[in-house]
């Protein structure tokens, strides 16, 4: 007794093929729509802003006159911000990930912590801004300094770094850990000599992507009260500063049409920084990828 009726199968064949084609079309359309939007955005920004990109643009401070406005304070300020965010968030993030994956026992409390770190990654950035305002700006009296903003941004991207690092650490096979323990290695020796060398590409990739999110974030800086028009560079982490997204936001909301173009020039700079960071992340991933 055969259950597959050849005729019935053939009758259905055409409609199955059509459904297949329809869905292929839908997905293609979705992809093209996304790419088109991106292309239009790029074109608009490039055509508006490219004329303002000059040596003066990088070397001038903010100004009331669009032709004199420059991005120096914001660019240097963002670099200062990263100088705080990168070490703080990576140290805390990778440290937490190592603890959670290698040291912490599997129990209810730790499962609860693990789940909630992922939840924290979804908390809106403005909420982290409020947290930073309460703790760092007011309670610790750091003011709207590089340090206060850096700590706030670190908190914001910490969950992302922890989750990415945890995944990289978890991807190291338990067999190689067992091999290390089996020879009398301590936990710390196993972590530094076996686990981290294999996990570091994944950890770095995740960290750099998180840092490039921090460099583009505006909301927490607005809440902390980071100023925009600054005519000097910070000389230390306790000085006030401004950052690229703040500067772009300020230009974009000015009434003069020329400032829209200045904002576009600023966006080009910010996008270049982001692209650069993402390329470094991809390079690291490709170069150090280890296979098992």
């Amino acid at each position, binding site marked *: 007794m055969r259950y597959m009726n050849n005729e019935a199968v053939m009758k259905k064949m055409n409609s199955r093929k059509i459904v297949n084609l329809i869905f292929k079309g839908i997905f293609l359309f979705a992809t093209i729509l996304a790419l088109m939007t991106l292309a239009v955005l790029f074109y608009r920004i490039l055509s508006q802003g490219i004329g303002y990109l000059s040596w003066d643009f990088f070397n001038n401070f903010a100004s009331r006159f669009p032709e004199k406005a420059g991005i120096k304070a914001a660019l240097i300020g963002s670099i200062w911000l990263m100088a705080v965010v990168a070490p703080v968030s990576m140290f805390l993030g990778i440290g937490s990930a190592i603890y959670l994956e290698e040291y912490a*026992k599997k129990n209810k409390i730790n499962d609860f912590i693990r789940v909630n770190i992922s939840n924290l990654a979804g908390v809106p950035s403005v909420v982290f801004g409020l947290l930073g305002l309460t703790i760092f700006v007011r309670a610790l009296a750091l003011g709207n300094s590089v340090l206060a903003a850096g700590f706030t941004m670190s908190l914001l991207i910490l969950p992302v770094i922890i989750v990415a690092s945890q995944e990289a650490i978890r991807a190291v096979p338990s*067999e190689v850990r067992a091999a290390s323990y089996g020879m*009398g*290695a301590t936990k710390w020796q196993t972590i530094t000599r076996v686990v981290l060398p294999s996990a570091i590409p994944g950890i770095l990739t995740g960290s750099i992507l998180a840092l490039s999110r921090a460099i583009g974030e505006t909301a927490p800086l607005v809440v902390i009260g980071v100023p925009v028009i600054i005519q000097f560079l910070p000389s230390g982490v306790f000085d006030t500063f401004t950052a690229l997204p703040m500067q772009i936001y300020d230009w974009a909301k000015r009434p003069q049409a020329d400032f829209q173009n200045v904002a576009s020039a600023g966006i080009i700079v910010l996008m270049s920084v982001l692209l650069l960071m993402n390329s470094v992340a991809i390079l690291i991933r490709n170069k150090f990828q*280890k296979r*098992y």
Partner: protein
Amino acid sequence: MVQQIDKKPETTQIVYDTKGLNLWYGTNHALKNIDLPIYENEVTAIIGPSGCGKSTYIKTLNRMVELTQGVKTSGEIHYRGRNIFDKDYTVEELRTKVGMVFQKPNPFPKSIYDNIAYGPRIHGIKNKKILDEIVEKSLRGAAIWDEVKDRLSTNAYSLSGGQQQRICIARALAIEPDVILMDEPTSALDPISTLKVEELVQELKKDYSIIIVTHNMQQAGRISDKTAFFLNGEVVEYDETNVIFSNPSDQRTEDYISGRFG
């Protein structure tokens, strides 16, 4: 290749003496009241069907079993007269004396040289000349020196599975252990590689005491001096290998060996 088993004098030293060992994974009573003396410079095979506790037992001997969550033990295992569960006996110290070879070849994603030098390095040897000598001696000991001596700096993953397993054996030899535990070391290997590892085991027992878990009864018969038959977490029978295979005293052992179950 049938190996003639020479009768050892009864005065042979005991390396491992297990007394009343019980082990639980959570509520699962995996090892039940195990008593097992293991002798020096012999190959002791542990056989039994899947889930009988043979792997658990061998992993208890160097306390690797404790990496699993929720493991509880009672009873004693004396290694060279010291209870390995004593508070002041650290696992690191124990595992320096007891090397382990695992079921699946598990070299580090490092060069062949760095794989072998790993153990000596974690125990503090930094001198390049000494490391070179240890690497050569260990690779020779594992009968793989001639195959890899010209490419010590290549990644161990570029080797075949059988070669990788002998690298893992060499890696275990590099810490100059007293005992080598082997947890089904040939189960992932082809017949020719298996044969090489078996020959190696025969060679190694001159200098080391070897405890080998195997699901392959022919293998146990070929290479071991004593065999313990585990069933449902208990030792059913433990005797000279030729006695176990030719004249077992327990009906269950006979059933298992003749292939009636397992």
